[in-house]
Each structure stands twice: as structure tokens, then as C-alpha cells.
């Protein structure tokens, strides 16, 4: 089981590394977003409770989140491609536990997302975000959790889809808003009431908190912070629900209807 998951996840990583433009795009795009949007908004950023935090600092966790979202979208698109190009049918007829198919895909996609996030994390000290070692470990843990959350969500959505163009629609009206309303671009606390409500039920808001707070608080403070603990619980629940949904979808086999319903 572990070998199967490893082999399937390894395949994702090999395929990714063999596409240099995908590697460049996945790091370059968030970096440009961060530099351009961050620099542009910096002069106007003045959020209550965040005194002393520049917009470049505020936006970095948001950009890391965007990177994970896009990594997950790419991973989901490969599910559709695998089905379309025929690779998937070979995996489905193999005597492989269906959970392993999900974990292999999701594990590979999440590993890629975490790897890319770590590269982008190198930018943090340059804008004055220097977490301690404990904070760094917590950030890494947050990366793993949110990357898995995003890739399993993408998996559950993309499984069974036949066209990548259909998935683009889902991406724009469902996945992108999850990120837009996560507090990545603007703080949750100052949002108007209806928006605040949407943002607070959005699991990505909580995953983002897991990434952002360790930059500003020590592990000791975090352990006593109810908002941080709540974020941890919500993110874990999000991951569990999406994982369960994905496995359920993979296990389902198209079934014929009762014979008497067909015309003779």
C-alpha cells in the first residue's frame, strides 16, 4: 500500500519536473502577484490590529496560499488528463486499494505544492518576516495540511470530469473565490457583515491563519490562542471531509439499471 502510494506520488513529481515551463510558471506567477499587487497596495494598507505590518508582509501568506491553490488545480487537471489519455484505466483495473489511488495523486500534488511554497518562503526574511525555528516548523505543518486540503478538494471535484475546459469553470467560480475570500488580500475583521460571514465559514480562511499566525506569534502564544486552535480544527476537518469524499467517488463504479427497464 505504501509502495503503491509512493510510486503513484513519485510519478506526479517526475512528470512535473519534466515540464520546465510548469516549474517556472508555478513559482513565477505567485512571485509576480506578490511583487506587483503587494507593491501597489502597500501605501494604502492600514488595517486595525495590524499596526506595524506592511502589506508586503501581510500578503505573503496569502500568496503562499494562492500557490497551493494553483498547485492543486494543476494536480486536479492531471486527473482529467490521466483519464482522457488512458493512464487511469490501467490503474483502475490493477488490484490496488482505491484509497491508494487517492493518496498517491493527492500526496504527489501536495508534495509539489509544499516544495514550491518552501522556495517562495525564502522571500520572507527580505520583507522582515523572520519566524523562529518553532514557528518555522508550525508553518511547514500548515503547508502540509493546507496543500493536502486543497489537493483533496480538487480531486473530489475533478474525479469523473471528462474535460479540462469544464474544470476551468469550476476553478473560476468555486476555487478562486475560496482564495479571494480567505483573507489573503484583505483582512477578515474589517470586511462588511455579509462578506465577513462568508469568509468565516470558508475553510481556506482558517488554513491561511495556520500559515500567517506563526510569523507573528511564538508557538507558546499560539497554543493558547483559541483562533489558532479553531483554525487547526477546521482545516483538519476540511481535509478529512474532502479525503472521504474523494475515496467515496473513486470506489463508486458505474452500474447498470434493472434489466426490466430496457425496451425489448
Amino acid at each position, binding site marked *: 500500500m505504501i*509502495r*503503491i502510494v509512493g*510510486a*503513484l506520488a513519485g*510519478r506526479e513529481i*517526475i*512528470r512535473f519536473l*519534466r515540464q520546465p515551463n510548469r516549474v517556472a510558471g508555478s513559482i513565477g506567477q505567485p512571485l509576480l502577484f506578490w511583487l506587483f499587487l503587494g507593491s501597489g497596495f502597500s501605501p494604502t494598507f492600514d488595517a486595525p490590529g495590524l499596526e506595524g505590518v506592511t502589506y508586503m508582509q501581510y500578503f505573503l501568506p496569502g500568496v503562499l496560499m494562492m500557490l497551493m491553490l494553483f498547485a492543486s488545480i494543476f494536480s486536479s487537471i492531471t486527473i482529467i488528463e490521466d483519464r482522457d*489519455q*488512458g*493512464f*487511469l*484505466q*490501467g*490503474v*483502475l*483495473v*490493477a*488490484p*490496488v486499494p482505491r484509497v491508494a489511488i487517492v493518496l498517491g495523486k493527492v500526496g504527489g500534488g501536495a508534495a509539489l505544492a509544499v516544495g514550491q511554497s518552501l522556495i517562495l518562503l525564502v522571500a520572507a526574511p527580505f520583507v522582515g518576516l523572520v519566524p523562529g525555528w518553532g514557528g518555522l516548523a508550525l508553518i511547514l505543518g500548515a503547508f502540509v495540511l493546507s496543500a493536502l486540503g486543497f489537493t483533496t478538494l480538487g480531486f473530489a471535484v475533478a474525479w469523473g470530469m471528462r474535460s479540462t475546459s469544464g474544470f476551468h469553470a469550476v476553478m473560476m467560480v468555486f476555487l478562486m473565490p475560496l482564495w479571494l475570500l480567505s483573507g489573503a488580500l484583505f483582512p477578515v475583521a474589517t470586511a462588511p457583515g455579509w462578506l465577513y460571514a462568508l469568509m468565516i465559514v470558508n475553510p481556506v480562511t482558517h488554513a491561511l491563519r495556520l500559515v500567517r499566525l506563526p510569523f507573528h506569534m511564538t508557538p507558546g502564544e499560539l497554543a493558547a490562542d483559541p483562533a489558532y486552535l479553531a483554525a487547526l480544527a477546521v482545516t483538519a476537518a476540511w481535509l478529512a471531509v474532502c479525503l472521504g469524499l474523494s475515496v467515496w467517488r473513486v470506489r463508486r*463504479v*458505474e*452500474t*447498470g*439499471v*434493472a*434489466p426490466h*427497464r*430496457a*425496451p425489448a
Partner: protein
Amino acid sequence: MITLQGLTHVYPGHRKTPPHAAVRDLSLHVPAGEFCVLTGPNGSGKSTLFRILCGTLTPSAGRVEIAGADLFRQPDAARRALGVVFQSPAVDKQLSVRENLRLHATLYGLGRGTLAARLGEALEWSDLEGRLDQRVDTLSGGLARQVELAKCLLTRPRLLLLDEPTTGLDPASRMRFLKALHTLQRQRDMTVLMTSHIFAEAEAADRVAVMMGGHLLALDSPGALRDRVGREMLVVEAEAPDHLHAALAESLGRVVTRHGDELRLEGLGRGDGLALLEQVLAEHRDAVRSVAIRRPDLEDVFVHITGRDPGDAAGPAAEAAEVPS
């Protein structure tokens, strides 16, 4: 080796399409060591049947037993005995041949040692030696097919299922692939069930199953199937087929079948064709454009059994449209 019992599959309908039965009460037994070709026109239910046998579609009713294991109750045991070659390649084109083989071996739980030991036997018949580190998308179509088969051989399947495996191959690659398949089947004592709509591919099979409209119309050896059409047949091309059809039937007192513009007199014994040919020319010379004596091949058998031209998608049976897997 594989037994199908009362297999029925009805696709659920949608708002505008009623449910339709693609496979109807089909029973078939392929004993161990047999090479069986499943053939039939488009929409006959071949692809649906294939998807059921792979376990990617659960039928409405019926049982499938592979190597003694119930496909739906003990899927893993059945899958372990099974090797599948799909019509669309199930290899990762961005990986090398070796990486594909290694991944496949891992999916079937073979360790590194086993993989190394079996690599030789999986490849010796092929033209892949020296190309193990080449990416699959750089190989020709024929070689890519060989990767597919080599991959399956790694797990030493007892039953090999192939879905129109020669689709998209040129005639030379097609012949090479089939020849290798037949040799491997005998050498390694595999049971083979292969779908095909190319009747020439069935000539070398032990038995041929002909499907139409979800039913099994015939199941016999190629020789016995050919005998149904007789040793010889007379094919007459007419200027006005309608007219000659009636005239021939009357003057010869035989059943004349019509396929497009061709009129056929089937079921002739050896040597009967020549006498009949003379008679046709003597009585209908002016109405005949050409006339030939032929030894029936499987394509003629197919036309005889299904009553339609191969590949002709029109007709009532075509309503049960084939669903791509």
C-alpha cells in the same frame, strides 16, 4: 478460465434518451488456454462487455468468474489473474519504458527483485530492447503497443483481455503484434479474450464469438463458422440488382442474398461454384457485370450471420450505441 453467466447491462436513460440494453442475457465460457476473439459490428455491445470484464462497469445482472474468483465479490483476486490491454494506451507517455514497467509492477505488488527477474521474459519477444530508457511518446505506435503488452506480461496474467489492440497500427505492425500475441499465448499458457472488428484477425483464433445487439449470435471455431457459408460462394455484381435478384432466385431455385449491389449464392459445396457460374452466365449474361467464385472468409461469415455489412452502423442493432470506455 473465464465464465460469464446471464450477463445483462442496461444503461440508465436520461431525460431525452430511454434506458437501453447494451448486453442482453449473455453467457460465455472460455476454457483455460484458449484464444477467443470477440467480434461484432459497432454498437453490438463489445465495448460494454469489455468494460464489465475489466471491472470498471457493474452490470445490471449476471455473474463473471475469472480464474475461479467472482469479479464483483472478490475483485482483487480476479484482477490479479487479469492482464488488460486497452484500445487507448494505458501507459504514461511522459515516462520512459522502464519507468512505466516499474510503476506497473509496483501496482501489482511485485518487488524490485521480481521485476528484475521478469524483465527479460516480458521483453524478449519485443523490439524494445535498447529502448528501455526512451520516453514512450518518442516511440512509434507499434512499439508503444508492445510496451502495453510487455507491461501486462510482467504480472504473468492467466487471462489476457485485449480491446481492439491493433487499432491505429499499420498492417505490418498489426501482423507482428498478433503473431507475437499468438506465440506468447501458446508459450505461456495464457487464455486470451480479444475484441476486434477486423475479421482477418480472428482467423488464427481457437474460437470466434460474434455479438450483435447485445446477444451472442455465434460461438465456434473459424473453420466451423466458415462451413456455415459453405465451401464456396458465388458473388454476382449486377447492372440492376433488384431485377437480377428476383430473376436469379427463380431460375436457379436457390436462396440469393443481397448485400449492397452484390448478390450472393452461399453454401455451395466444393466445385459446385463453377457449374453454377456457367448457368448464371448462360441465362443472365446481359444483366451481369461480373461474377466470381470465392472461398468464404470470416468477413463473409459475419455478413451471413448478422445479415449486414461489417462496419455498417445503420440498422436496428446500431441503436444500442457503443459507449467508449
